[in-house]
């Protein structure tokens, strides 16, 4: 049966009989019927739903909206045997009129956010400090108990972080010092002081570039690898399994990596220094026409006894920074693989940041010491 609407009555007492098909399928038809209603009404309106067939929420809503538009608050609506949709919609409308208290999730101003941020930083700093403390505790124990040095693990990590990194470290150190020597010799030629390109190379490579480039490459290679390896073990419950077997993951996984990198990074730095000097020397030879004996003489004159050590002494410090940050990030991986990627990224960014920060502090320190 097609949908129908019959309005009768008059004055302030109206009666609306809703009949026929009022299901969702009849919505188009219902809307035509609704258009037939008078543009304005006042008084009491009784809606009789008893003859409506399977009324749907769409048509019911359309009717209520239409009545709202033509009644505009001047009509009091009563429903006779309304379907449950109508009861629901009416209840919703009443709640909307009385208003809803605003959801209070605590203060959300800039100051509150700053406060929460500071607190979360504080938590993390505490956690990091306790991690470092556990490393120190393991090291102290290891001094007394040589068995916990874990030589197989140590050699494996020296190989992975050191030996396999030699080609890339050589290549980068060689190329960068060629570039620096080239730029330097271009400028020095203007003053006829091309011979000083040797000083430039020697000091730049030995004091800064050799160790800094190596540290950055290692941070990218091994810092991320530490975070990813340990993080994957966290996800696989391997760390929990170690603890359950009565073993300390810091002793087993973290400390060997830190020690290995502390051994590998200075060695890599020496190699980087050598290839850097070689690259600079080659450029000086072919571009600035400085002969090899001349180069060697100038090199001896240019470097103070401390120059080489000023670079090398930084290497173990950088190594500890990279390894601690990498392993800490790995241990922080919890539950989701997404966290693994995030922590690995943070490991690389933070370790490079710390390396450069430490390098700047070293520079200030060396100036003060006249090193």
């Amino acid at each position, binding site marked *: 049966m097609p949908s129908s609407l019959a309005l009768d009555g008059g004055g302030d007492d109206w009666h609306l009989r809703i009949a026929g098909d009022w299901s969702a399928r009849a919505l188009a038809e219902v809307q035509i019927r609704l258009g037939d209603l008078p543009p304005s009404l006042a008084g009491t309106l009784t809606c009789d739903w008893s003859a409506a067939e399977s009324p749907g929420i769409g048509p019911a809503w359309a009717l209520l909206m239409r009545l709202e538009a033509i009644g505009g608050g001047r009509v009091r609506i009563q429903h006779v045997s309304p379907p449950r949709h109508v009861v629901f919609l009416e209840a*919703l409308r009443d*709640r909307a009129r009385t208003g*809803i208290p605003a959801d209070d999730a605590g203060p959300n101003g800039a100051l509150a956010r700053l406060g929460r941020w500071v607190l979360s930083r504080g938590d993390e700093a505490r956690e990091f400090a306790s991690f470092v403390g556990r490393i120190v505790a393991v090291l102290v124990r290891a001094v007394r108990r040589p068995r916990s040095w874990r030589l197989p693990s140590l050699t494996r990590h020296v190989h992975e972080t050191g030996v396999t990194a030699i080609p890339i470290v050589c290549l980068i150190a060689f190329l960068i010092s060629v570039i620096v020597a080239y730029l330097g010799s271009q400028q020095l030629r203007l003053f006829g002081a091309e011979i000083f390109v040797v000083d430039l190379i020697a000091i730049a490579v030995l004091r800064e570039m050799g160790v800094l480039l190596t540290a950055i490459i290692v941070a990218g290679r091994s810092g991320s690898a530490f975070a990813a390896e340990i993080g994957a073990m966290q996800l*696989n*419950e*391997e760390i929990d*399994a170690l603890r359950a077997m*009565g*073993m300390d993951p810091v002793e087993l996984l973290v400390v060997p990596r830190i020690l290995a990198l502390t051994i590998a990074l200075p060695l890599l730095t020496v190699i980087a220094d050598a290839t850097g000097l070689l690259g600079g020397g080659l450029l000086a030879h072919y571009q600035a026409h400085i002969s090899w004996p001349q180069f060697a003489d100038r090199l001896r004159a240019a470097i103070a006894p401390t120059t080489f050590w000023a670079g090398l002494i930084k290497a173990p410090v950088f190594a500890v920074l990279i390894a601690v940050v990498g392993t800490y990030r790995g241990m922080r991986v919890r539950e989701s693989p997404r966290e693994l990627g995030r922590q690995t990224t943070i490991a690389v960014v933070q370790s490079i940041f710390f390396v450069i920060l430490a390098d700047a502090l070293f520079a200030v320190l060396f100036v003060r010491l006249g090193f």
Partner: protein
Amino acid sequence: MNATSPIIDLREVRYTVGGRVIFDGLDMQILPGQVTAVMGPSGTGKTTLLRLITGQATADAGSIDVGGVAVVGASRSQVYALRQRMGMLFQNGALLTDISVFENVAFPLREHTRLPERLIRQLVLTKLQAVGLRGAAGLMPAELSGGMARRVALARAIVMDPQILLYDEPFVGLDPISMGVILRLIRRFNDALGLTSIVVSHDVHEITAVADRVFLLSGGRVVAQGTPQELHDSPSDIVKQFVGGLADGPVPFHYPAPDYFEELLARDGGRFA
């Protein structure tokens, strides 16, 4: 210690994480030589319970006594010594991925003992034989199926001859054959090695087949305990809901939420804005 005094004794245990109460007033006595099942809806802290027993998590209040050692307040070295008397099987086996099956099983021996290599070899092969995987000794963990990985982990868990064996969801994601194998191994090891086994699971059917005693956790405490048959006949609503797998009951279908009307009507997105 006589046969009836519990080997694991938890009393009035309270444990919270980040302000959320996981356990409050948890009492549980586990008898030696039995297979005890711990069941409960997801998120009731069944795995946390195992972590409390192994001392990987520390209770806020109450006492936990394992084999005569008070875990709450124990020193680090006491806890580590205690863990050597316990074996634990993790959900996915948690084998170390970069060493072989043989080395995985040998690992606790190499770490905790100074046995000669020949003896280690024999012990490892014996345990692998017991789980039927002596032939897989040379494989890497990545080459194992889920069920095999769990059996290797089981061999590793018993290699130190523990008194207590803890199983964390040992049946998850296994095919019926592997499941049957694990079930049989749990029972066999428990009886042959004189162990005490604790199995955390929510596979009602499998558990009733293997357990001597069942604890049902809900809302941070034990809501029911007894033999599987007793639990099956229990008139309690929560037990009925759990054993019968009913969608709504004491454990509600709906996660706690603000009033439905208010949520629908919330201006400017409400709490999701």
